[in-house]
């Protein structure tokens, strides 16, 4: 199997002779969520700039789909289209005087005809939830909106990999969560997402794979649980433990828990504690989680289920779901970490509704059923069925499949 991005013994020195990167060899699998974690100056940004050929390693090589990167202008164009990069500071990235122009920049430079440019820009803006912002100048946008514009500008070029440098820095918590939620959705659509961060909570919770960097090299890599197990290593990298791991370690220290693998999230931690205190996870009635695919069911069905079933909590994942929730006038209890939150609530016997779309629907079902099998508790996950005479456009959406596809989206609009 070939990796989507691979570096082999890559080193890099800046003009002043300072070595920013020494002998880094990593290989990244396709379709995963990867976080480069490390303190300031660890070389995260330098490494990211190599993924699409903006920096050329002093020694060593970078490979994309097993092919060594070449640095002539035609190859560079190709790699930059496939590996989209979102910079830390949105003002560096958004240079056009209106939102439309900025998002259109990539497609125009790829030589697309005008009609196609329009379609792609429309789709990218719809995806990030900024339709209607076309003529706005960037200096009238909030930080979160600027970040969305920057992401839309990359999406309009249909990259396979999205590289984001500190995507949540300078954003308020709600905006950060929305951005990360959007990245989850993109990942569900098949894109490989690479972020750099020094927010350990974020990396631990979000990433499939964590690469711990320090001083221009890779300290360690693995799942969040593997990497954050070793507190000595984390201290060396000038980071701190995620709060879940910290609590877990203290509980183990007091002999309240035992085991070797820290829990991934609050859900697993509460399960561990419950299993320990009650001897087993045996519960009475668990709640039901209703899942609504907003591409297929309309406001009426959602209102219907809210009336019929005794739903205590509602959550939405993805832009279209959030837009619909706003239309229907549902106040959302969860806008991030929705599935886990709903499972937690189901375990306390409460019913909940998850609104989402595309590949996230099956992802939610799998996640809930997977949890049920693992923990032995039965949580019912019900997919909301569309009514017989379903909405006209839902057929097309169905045809396009869950995979994020520009061509279909354009036609569906």
């Amino acid at each position, binding site marked *: 199997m070939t990796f989507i991005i691979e570096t082999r013994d890559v080193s890099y020195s800046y003009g002043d002779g300072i070595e920013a990167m020494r002998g880094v060899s990593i290989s990244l699998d396709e379709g995963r969520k990867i976080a480069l974690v490390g303190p300031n100056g660890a070389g995260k940004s330098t490494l990211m700039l190599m993924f699409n050929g903006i920096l050329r390693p002093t020694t060593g090589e970078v490979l994309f789909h097993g092919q060594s990167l070449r640095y002539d202008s035609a190859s560079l164009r190709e790699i*930059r289209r496939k590996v989209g990069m979102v910079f830390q500071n949105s003002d560096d990235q958004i240079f056009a005087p209106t939102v439309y122009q900025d998002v259109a920049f990539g497609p125009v430079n790829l030589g697309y005809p005008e009609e196609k440019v329009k379609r792609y820009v429309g789709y990218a803006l719809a995806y990030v939830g900024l339709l209607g912002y076309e003529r706005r100048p960037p*200096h009238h946008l909030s930080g979160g909106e600027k970040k969305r514009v920057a992401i839309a500008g990359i999406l309009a070029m249909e990259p396979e990999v999205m590289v984001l440098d500190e995507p949540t820095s300078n954003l308020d918590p709600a905006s950060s969560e929305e951005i990360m939620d959007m990245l989850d959705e993109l990942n569900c659509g098949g894109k490989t997402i690479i972020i750099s961060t020094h927010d350990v909570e974020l990396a631990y919770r979000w990433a499939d794979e964590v690469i711990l960097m320090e001083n221009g090299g890779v300290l360690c890599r693995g799942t969040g649980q593997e990497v954050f197990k070793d507190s000595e290593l984390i201290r060396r990298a000038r980071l701190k433990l995620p709060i879940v791991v910290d609590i877990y370690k203290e509980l183990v220290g007091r002999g309240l828990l035992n085991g070797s693998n820290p829990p991934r999230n609050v859900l697993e931690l509460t399960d561990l504690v419950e299993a320990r205190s009650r001897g087993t996870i045996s519960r009475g009635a668990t709640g039901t989680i209703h899942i609504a695919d907003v591409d297929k069911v309309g406001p009426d069905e959602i209102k219907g289920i809210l009336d019929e079933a005794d739903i205590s909590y509602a959550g939405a994942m993805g832009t279209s779901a959030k837009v619909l929730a706003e239309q229907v006038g549902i106040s959302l209890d969860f806008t991030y970490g929705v599935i886990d939150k709903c499972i937690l609530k189901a375990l306390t016997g409460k019913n909940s509704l998850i609104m989402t779309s595309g590949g996230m629907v099956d992802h939610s079902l799998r996640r809930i059923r997977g949890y049920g099998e693992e923990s032995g508790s039965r949580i019912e996950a019900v997919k909301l069925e569309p009514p017989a005479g379903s909405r006209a456009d839902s057929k097309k959406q169905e045809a396009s499949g869950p995979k994020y596809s520009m061509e279909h989206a354009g036609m569906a609009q």
Partner: protein
Amino acid sequence: MHDLLDDYAHSSALTKTSPRLKLLLGLGAMLLCVSSATPIAPIFIAVTMSLITIGIAKTPGRFYFTLLLIPLSFALLSSGVVAFMHGGGDQLFAVNLFGFLLEIREDGANLALLLIARTFGGMCSLFFIALTTPMMEIFSVLKSLGLPDFLVDLSMLMYRYIFVFIDQAALIHNAQVMRLGDAGIKNTLKSHAILSGVLFLRAWEQGERLIVAMDARCYDGRLSLVEPAARAKPRAIFAVMIYIIIVSAIAFLTKDIRLL
């Protein structure tokens, strides 16, 4: 936040009308102002343009008048000097200042009046353009008039980064004031020098980052995607034409009238 003319232009009620027509109206009125022989046409233009800007384009009146005060105060000062400088005609006013005779004569007074009226009318026309036409639309007009792409591109980038640097300048200024950088003239001058120097360096760095950002998105020499501007409605064209004809007629018919 900063109070920028461009922001008002974005929220103006005339944002969506054809920029060409707005430019035609503004520039036409301005030309008539400067070429008019008497103050009557410019005064007419000043009044009507203000009415259009406040009444139709919905620019806040209070803001509009404070804005007008700036050029008006300049015009009043300079026309005062002009009034005293030009001789000819009957003496209207004289004052003896320590043996110097300062007098205003008819010609001087007329010229001063004309100067005020022209400045006033011209500024009202210019503000009409500035307060109803966002910069982006002016770029699109420039492009359709055949300005080379690279000039349009450069102006668009400059326009975009003006706002980034205004923010930066404000931040640096605050940082200086916080540490008493504005205590005394000497300090103020020094702070300003530092601010300019730092801004220059920041601009330079921003330029380098800009190139990286453009390259990262496959820059291939194509930037100027000026959106096609709104087309003018026949009714609007007709109205503008009528207005210009009326102003021309006023200017022509009143060309021999002397106010004083």
